[in-house]
């Protein structure tokens, strides 16, 4: 299954090769051109009917993770975070280190030896380390290099009423949507772009947009979801199972209202459920894309993901399906020159 392969692959920002290779093998027979640019972005073009405007659909390939910074005197690995990782979700988790995916664990001080006030305090990154079972610094040095990327070790699981648990749903879910779009939409001209290093500052998308020079861009994402019952609805960024989330504003983009209203109109005409992404927190590749060259209009359409940026993020298959349906409807509208 594609989403399983995509999420179980390691692709911490700056180290997207494993993910990139899966994507290329999936799409290479379905595109008219495919190039990997100097940063590692995949830029593909599908030729359909001629349109007056250039459409680009993007998804970032990278995920948050860790990087080895030191090996201590007894062979434990010190690390730093790559992208936005809440230090509190690291304790007591397994990880995979480096290209050979050496298994390790992030342990914690036994509760028995703690004072009560200790467990009310979050552990800092510099108090944590990865234990790969090496007995000495020398043994660890044979297996691990400083600078090795570390990803969460977490499998793909389907559970509950149509939900999926995996690491890196942000943004392998976007990659999966775009791969399927490239495979299944054949009569519409568009650029499909898979970007690198979104999580460490929207690095890949600017140069990719510079090359493509789009008029309209659709950024596909997995986004924040927290839908607790006793919360005021304006505090809920997105709900699970309520369809694709359409962005209003975030830290990097004030989204074009005309395009947004057209998309909502498309959703309503096609009876596709949708919701607004009701938080201004976070940001994504749109932030760079909409200001590249002479500028372009953008929208971000996201699949809500609970526990995002953790080893166990959760999304709903129905949200995926509705997001995909909306995308196809938007592309059809684009082909009719009505977007």
């Amino acid at each position, binding site marked *: 299954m594609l989403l399983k392969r995509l999420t179980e692959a390691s692709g911490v920002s700056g180290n997207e090769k494993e993910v990139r290779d899966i994507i290329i093998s999936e799409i290479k027979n379905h595109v008219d051109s495919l190039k990997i640019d100097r940063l590692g972005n995949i830029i593909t073009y599908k030729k359909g009917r001629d349109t007056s405007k250039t459409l680009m659909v993007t998804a970032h390939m990278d995920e948050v993770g860790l990087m080895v910074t030191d090996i201590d005197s007894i062979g434990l690995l010190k690390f730093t975070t790559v992208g936005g990782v809440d230090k509190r*979700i690291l304790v007591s988790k397994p990880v995979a280190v480096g290209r050979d995916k050496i298994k390790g664990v992030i342990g914690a001080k036994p509760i028995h030896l703690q004072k009560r006030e200790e467990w009310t305090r979050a552990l800092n990154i510099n108090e944590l380390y990865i234990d790969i079972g090496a007995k000495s610094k020398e043994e660890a040095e044979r297996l691990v290099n400083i600078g090795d990327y570390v990803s969460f070790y977490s499998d793909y699981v389907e559970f509950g009423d149509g939900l999926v648990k995996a690491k890196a749903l942000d943004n392998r879910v976007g990659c999966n949507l775009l791969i399927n779009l490239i495979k299944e939409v054949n009569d519409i001209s568009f650029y499909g772009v898979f970007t690198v290093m979104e999580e460490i500052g929207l690095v890949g998308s600017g140069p990719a947009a510079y090359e493509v020079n789009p008029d309209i861009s659709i950024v596909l994402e997995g986004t924040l979801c927290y839908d607790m019952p006793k919360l005021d609805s304006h505090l809920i960024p997105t709900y699970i199972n309520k369809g694709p989330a359409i962005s209003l504003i975030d830290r990097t983009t004030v989204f074009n209202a005309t395009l947004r209203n057209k998309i909502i109109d498309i959703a309503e005409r096609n009876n596709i459920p949708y919701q607004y992404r009701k938080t201004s927190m976070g940001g994504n590749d749109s932030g760079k894309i909409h200001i590249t060259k002479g500028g372009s209009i953008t929208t971000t359409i996201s699949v809500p993901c*609970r526990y995002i940026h953790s080893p166990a993020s959760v999304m709903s298959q129905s949200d995926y399906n509705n997001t995909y349906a909306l995308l196809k409807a938007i592309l059809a509208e684009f082909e009719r020159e009505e977007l």
Partner: protein
Amino acid sequence: MDTKTLLELLCNGKGVSGYEYTIKDTIVSAFDKYSDEISVDNLGNVLALKKGSTKEDNIKIMLAGHMDEIGLMVKDIEDNGFIRFTNIGGIDPRTILGQEVIVHGKKDLFGVVGSKPPHLQDPSEHDKAIKMEDMTIDIGYSKEEVEKLVNIGDTITIRRELLNLQGDRVASKALDDRAGIAVLFECIKELGKIRHEADVYFVSTVQEEVSMAGALTGAYKINPDIGIAVDVGFGTTPELSKSDTIELGKGPGITLGGNIHPRLRQKLTEVAREYNIPFQMEISPGPTGTDARAMQITREGIPSLCLSIPLRYMHTSVEVIDMVDIKHTAKLLAFFIASISNDSLEGLLCY
């Protein structure tokens, strides 16, 4: 069965204190082949007896490794189907956030432990640990469905499979104290090769983490001459002081202190030296908080010993041990048992 295979089966099994019956069959089928009698008592302890080589009225030695593990319990179900929970046994709440769990409802249900995401927290909260009461378990069903599948009081375990690290080291949940049962298993196999006079009871005890109930009732029933707990000890890591810990790969910790019979402990170290088995001293002046404590005060008092397998990150779901220590601990136990004769015991117990 290979001892490591048994350890993996036990660690991947799920048996929170009071609910150990789920791994009972695995233990019975492993020990059955090597024991003369095997039984399960009222509380769920598994007692495997290997008889001594001499006449009747053999002295009795009881070995105890506890089969229960720490875990969680369902407390409430939210309107959106999320589960609120509490802990069974000592758990650092910081080790629970973001874990995958199995909720043992009408069937085993996969779930994820979540909380308010950091993006929605006030920045001042970022350095505070999330409290267990602010966490929820998401099993992906509506409240209506959850209520059909889950009852208040159902137990929950962390979803974790034993992970092979470098060399002989492994990481898992519940190595405390399924590693102790692995030592018992390795020991019963060793004793098949060595002559011993004592009747040896290999007891997989229940409820050590909450009350030591299994060791208390098991020791009462067996009424052994010597009780030996095989548990885990704090493994050395950078944040712990060396004097509080024992090192992985350097043999069992032999506990010293009021819980431990001094002459027997001395004999244990003599045996270790005689057979070149590495060991470390573990200092515990008061009650040890292991089955050795329960055995010591059973009936009119039972001379007790405690051996500790060095283990890092105790009571997390990524506890780490070195399999070499399982071998060393089991060897030491077997040679110690073989060194005790019906005639020599009296002298050893004299103060």
